[in-house]
């Protein structure tokens, strides 16, 4: 282990703001992307299902 304490680790030898600013924003954006992508699938499923239902309701067979 190269760090003597947690605060030593946290301060990153005075570069804490820059190092954690980089890692933090990267983690946040990737987490946000995972969330959006998941929601994108849910939206796609909802859209497909509702269009299929509308087609059924119209009694049209468009397959």
């Amino acid at each position, binding site marked *: 282990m190269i*760090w003597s304490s947690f605060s030593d680790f946290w301060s990153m030898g005075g570069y804490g*703001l*820059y190092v954690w600013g980089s890692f933090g*924003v*990267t983690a946040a954006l990737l987490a946000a992307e995972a969330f959006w992508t998941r929601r994108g699938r849910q*939206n796609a499923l909802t859209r497909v299902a509702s269009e299929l239902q509308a087609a059924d309701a119209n009694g049209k067979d468009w397959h």
Partner: protein
Amino acid sequence: MIRKLFYFSSPQNFYPLAGKLWPMFACLATALTIWGLWLGMFVAPTDVQQGEGYRIIYVHVPVSWMSMVIYLAMAFWALLGLTFNTRLSGMLTSALAPTGAIFAFLSLWTGALWGKPMWGTWWVWDARLTSELILFFLYLGFIALTSAIDDARRADKAGAILALVGALNVPVIYFSVKWWNTLHQGASVSLTKGSSMQQTMLEAMLIMAVAFWMYAIAMTLYRVRSIILVRERHSQWVADLPEVKAQSLEART
């Protein structure tokens, strides 16, 4: 092999394959990230010149590499789509773009946070930084262009041309530190000269690069499934999917 490729170039066959593959890539990405961060943040020594500030390298270099790799992957699918007129190619090109845009943004963001303490400035208009900024705008342009065109096939074509022309910018980014006199340092890792980095630092950085690569593949596979669903919604196989049936049932009740 060739027959398999043809088989999976159909969206109907690729959809279940992507569904099986993305969790594997997601697991790999998670495991490699934990390993890479452990090595980079707890094992790798302090840098002689930059102190602890150099640790930004464990995100900056991987996201920058991936921002270029993803654009090249888009250009590859674009070329394939334009040549063979395969439907899946356009869907994959579109599925790659958001992840590429995020990596390009992160490359600029982490670069600014690294530049401030080391160079004394967040930003300079030098060749490396400017060409990476152009790459970010190319991603945004691709997303804007393809989502502005309603007809999916025409959107794919227009996007493919933008992806191919924009790919010229990638070697410019890569070689900019050689071709021009820039503030940005030269490559620490090169295919011809090997690496000038300390062994553990290099390992941690490469592991993080592979981790982000796996993440990008997982995201793309997951996203392309949603694109396939919407584009193929008029075909019977989509209506027969258990997840679509479940969704319809849920909507009815």
